[in-house]
């Protein structure tokens, strides 16, 4: 039950893009095209889940027993960068067809702040291993959902709308994100986290 609560909460009520406002740089830039947004979303789900699953044992089994949790930022960021690099190499070696659709997003994910944020929330909220996996999966699905909705709206908007000149690009993306965040606040009564 606890796990289902975490899963639902991290997708809808505590959506990492629309409630905590994280991962905004790709959210603005990548959301111009629907297919690209789907590719980015799926890559993020893979990387976030994998990186967080690796970070949990490193933090709880290596850093804490050695009393060196002071440097956990440094360790997390290196683990994330290494994971991304490894995934890139594996895709290049074993699944070349995927290279064109996902390969291009992987270097961008290293600097996506939501990857690091999920690991930091895991430390702040003191999650156990299974909870961490569920939370990472939920958060990344939530982020992918938000960027896909955003891309779909923007693609529709480009065909038939007259946006004021100064508002084009990042400005209108912010306004749409605001409306989306409003809509996601409607889920608030569904579950409460902690």
């Amino acid at each position: 039950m606890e796990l289902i609560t975490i899963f639902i909460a991290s997708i809808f009520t505590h959506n990492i893009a629309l409630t905590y406002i994280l991962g905004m740089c790709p959210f603005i830039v990548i959301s111009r095209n629907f297919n690209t947004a789907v590719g980015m979303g799926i890559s993020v789900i893979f990387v976030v889940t994998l990186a967080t699953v690796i970070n949990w044992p490193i933090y709880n089994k290596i850093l804490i027993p050695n009393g060196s949790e002071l440097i956990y930022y440094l360790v997390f960021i290196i683990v994330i960068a290494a994971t991304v690099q490894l995934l890139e190499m594996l895709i290049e070696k074993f699944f070349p067809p995927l290279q064109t659709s996902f390969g291009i997003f992987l270097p961008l994910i290293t600097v996506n702040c939501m990857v690091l944020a999920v690991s930091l929330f895991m430390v702040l909220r003191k999650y156990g291993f299974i909870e961490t996996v569920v939370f990472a999966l939920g958060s990344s699905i939530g982020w992918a959902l938000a960027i896909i909705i955003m891309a779909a709206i923007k693609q529709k908007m480009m065909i038939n709308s007259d946006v004021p000149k100064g508002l084009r690009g990042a400005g209108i993306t912010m306004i749409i994100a605001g409306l989306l965040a409003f809509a996601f606040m409607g889920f608030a009564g569904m579950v409460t986290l902690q």
Partner: protein
Amino acid sequence: MPKKQPKRNIMHTKWFKTLSAGLWLDNPIFCMVLGICSALAITNKVANALAMGAGVTFCLIFSSLFISLLRNLIPPRVRILTYMVVIATFVICVDNFLKAFFPPLSEALGPYVGLIITNCIIMGRCEAYAVKNTVFYSVLDALGCGLGYSLVLIFMAIVRESMAFGTILEFRIMPGWWQDWVMMAVAPGAFFLLGVYLWILRTLAKKTEQ
């Protein structure tokens, strides 16, 4: 970089241009739309915005300084990782400083202090400027960008805090009949406010995109 500097007018010297670019024409938030995650998430109180602005400026200056010093030694293939390690080191300093001297502030900022590492502004300035230029100009550029970023944060926080809580730095400024507008304290208010700011400033600066 050619060093041609017309002497008389201070407005045309390279150091003045470098410093002022970050404040207005190349402002990291309005023109490049970088690093807005933290800018939106923590600007519901002016105190948070001040702390965040100072933290980012500190990390930006010192990372630029070190990257610029090491610019001839960093192998191009691992440069992104090098930036991250340097930035993370300074972020750890900021985090522990806040924890030690301002515990309530550290608690309010939560994970967003750690997220300075992935703040695209710092990475962006290292990649676009510090790795190619001399130490002096890199530090000036970092200072300009840091101040420009802090300024935007403070302006956003002033509007959001006064509307959401009726206060600025915990000091009541709104009249008695003012109803607190809670929506400004959470995510939708932040998105709308930045959207409106972008609209106004881009119209004024005549910098529009398709």
